[in-house]
């Protein structure tokens, strides 16, 4: 029988992948961020389906407390918050790049006269 934390993991995996695809279709996310979260979503999905990964986690962390659905939900909510912040950061980065283009273009000041005999200044 499938564990509850696996169901939570699968649900959040689907949410992350669908959100990622939605933002991409709406052209609101750049390539790097999209790829990062697509891979994250798939990894969460795979890990949720294979309980052996959790056993490995117990060994690495040295804990005997079993992962519950509540722990998994808290972790996934945290991950979704990181996704949101990453998306906002990505948005700000894009705005910064657009501002850089406009600011840099404004700096252009040709040294010599153009064909109409007038100095080509803005």
């Amino acid at each position, binding site marked *: 029988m499938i564990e509850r934390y696996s169901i939570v993991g699968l649900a959040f995996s689907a949410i992350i992948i669908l959100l990622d*695809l939605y933002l*991409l*279709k709406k*052209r*609101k*996310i*750049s*390539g*790097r961020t*999209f*790829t990062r979260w*697509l891979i994250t979503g798939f990894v969460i999905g795979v890990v949720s389906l294979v309980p052996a990964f959790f056993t490995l986690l117990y060994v690495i962390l040295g804990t005997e407390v079993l992962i519950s659905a509540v722990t998994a939900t808290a972790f996934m909510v945290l991950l979704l918050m990181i996704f949101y912040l990453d998306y906002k950061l990505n948005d700000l980065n*894009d705005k910064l*790049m*657009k501002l*850089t*283009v*406009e*600011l*840099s*273009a404004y*700096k*252009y*000041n*040709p*040294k*010599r006269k*153009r*064909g109409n005999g007038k100095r*080509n200044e*803005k």
Partner: protein
Amino acid sequence: MKINTLVMIPAYNEEKTIGRVVEGVKTLYPDFDILVINDGSEDQTETYAQKAGANVITLPFHAGGTVAVLTGYLVALEHGYQYLVKIDGDGQHKPEDVERVLQPVMKDEADICVGSRYLANTGRIEEDSIVKIAGRIFSSTIVNRMVKNTEITDTTSGLRAWNRKALHNLVYAYLNERKFPDDSVLWIVETIIADKMGLRIKEIPIEVLPRRHGKSKSFSQMKMFRYPFRLIKLLIELMK
């Protein structure tokens, strides 16, 4: 005929070649304005470009090829240039080919003209690695499946020419309708969206010389790893 044309040369750490490229263009086309867009170089690219007689815009930080190219588009639009040509700063393009890519645009046969190394019958054996060649074949297959009005053989060519109509449409799309594309897929994105806008794209054969100094900025192991993901992302984004 040659007035009102801007030649842009985006450059990042190209101090060994930029002077020669600028001088080559200036000698052949004294009526063209030359703009070097220095993408936050850490070497003397800016100094050598200025010494060679180019106008130089230095970006405030290393922002990448896409930002440098779009700066060139915006400069050409805002300063009333009729035509814009882009040539690489690494000396791989021959200045003689600038006029060849400009001709179809000036004659109104195309809105965008792309120089293709694969159309030229130079007799030279392909020197790139198998991974690079496979990447190019993969990307040109994808592009040609997505565009309707043209067939592109060289999706990554950096020798291009645009008219004002093309620049206006592209700048509007980039600044208002979409995120900036990653550097590695800029020309692929541009080809697809230009085709969707109904802009006419034409390819002409050019010869690309081997790189003499430095490393290619387009290809690194990490970029080659990311490249398929970016193409998949592009497919999803542009699919209806």
